[in-house]
């Protein structure tokens, strides 16, 4: 969706403000917000892309005024409600008012957490079909503006780039955010800044995105 999360090329946010010797967390609530997000995610009730969609669906006025952990926390509450693990009333009062729902995976233990972090959950899958594009090929990123989750940023849409790498078939986020599984080929596609930004673009700049095959269409192979 064309939400507030799609920030590439936006202006007016001021300078980047690096923090010297920034700690991993700035407050205890941030630690717990991160840990709760991971632990609740491990129940298997939503995919990483459903999680992202919950964040980017926040009202832009909220999104741009929230710290990142606040965004995570608001999205976590939304997911718990939407997946019926909690009721809105329980969230408001902080007290359980009905028994727990059944979840796809059991509660994460301390050992399970260690394993989860050490192992991760790879997103590469067996491909269903051969890759449509080859390294070196010119492709156009589609013009598309779905209301659902997508990982094709607005700044790249309609632009012509070159396939640089093929990463194999991966989980397709647009489908995964709808709870569907659909492996598609994943490419690195590089665009000259002039193509992305036009007049006045940095002539020394190339920007690449990770582009899932359904985001791309072939181009006649001239020039």
């Amino acid at each position: 969706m064309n939400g507030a999360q799609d920030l590439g090329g936006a202006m007016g946010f001021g300078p980047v403000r690096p923090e010297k010797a920034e700690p991993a967390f700035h407050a205890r609530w941030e630690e717990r917000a991160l840990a709760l997000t991971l632990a609740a995610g491990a129940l298997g009730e939503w995919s990483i892309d459903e999680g992202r969609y919950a964040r980017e669906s926040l009202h832009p006025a909220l999104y741009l005024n929230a710290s990142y952990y606040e965004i995570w926390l608001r999205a976590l509450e939304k997911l718990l409600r939407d997946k019926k693990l909690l009721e809105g009333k329980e969230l408001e009062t902080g007290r359980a008012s009905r028994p727990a729902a059944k979840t796809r995976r059991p509660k994460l233990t301390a050992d399970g957490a260690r394993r989860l972090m050490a192992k991760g959950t790879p997103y590469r899958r067996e491909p269903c079909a051969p890759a449509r594009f080859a390294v070196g090929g010119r492709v156009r990123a589609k013009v598309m503006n779905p209301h659902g989750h997508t990982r094709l940023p607005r700044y790249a849409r309609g632009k012509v780039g070159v396939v640089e790498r093929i990463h194999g078939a991966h989980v397709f986020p647009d489908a995964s955010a709808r709870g569907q599984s659909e492996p598609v080929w994943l490419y690195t596609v590089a665009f000259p800044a002039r193509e992305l930004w036009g007049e006045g673009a940095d002539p020394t700049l190339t920007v690449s995105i990770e582009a899932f095959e359904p985001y791309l269409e072939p181009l006649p192979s001239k020039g």
Partner: protein
Amino acid sequence: MASCPCPTEHGRPAIDGYDPVARVKALEQLLVEKGYVDPLALDVIVETYAHEVGPMNGAKVVAKAWTDADYRGRLLANGTEAAAELGFGGRGGEHIVVVENTPRLHNLIVCTLCSCYPWPLLGLPPVWYKSPPYRSRAVIEPRAVLRDFGVTLPETTAIRVWDSTAETRYLVLPLRPEGSEGLSEERLASLVTREAMIGTGLALVPARAAA
């Protein structure tokens, strides 16, 4: 009137009265009470990212690549497997890609859409990496962003920005600094900052690292 409305990770209250401190406390209590979450698992997660996983991991990878040409080759060919050789991998770094700076090419990593970042090698992303100024500007004016970090590259250096729009996670292999000949891997690793591995900084030269 405060002229900068940038949110910070700690400080400004939310616009609608939402209080993250109170909410997260109530939420944890509720999730534990309902049996969805084990507080010991939460502690393990926090401990891991507070102490065990961080830029020192990525720095070891970089230092090894600087001293071991074979490893460097394997790292650039398959970042995930080469990181695993040193025991690094897992959550948020299932598919690691390492890109190499050269005197003519500088790499910069961003995630314009959220906060994708190579957790097993760099730990949790810093606030600035997740914030609108960096996410908006890195892909359109990276040189101006670099200036915010005090870095000025020659105009002849090409810049390559990698927008992390999938589960592939990028790490920059920075240029080995001058004056670092003959240093041990451990000393070399101390020159490798988090910013150098994102591309918003350069590796420290030994004199500055010692200072």
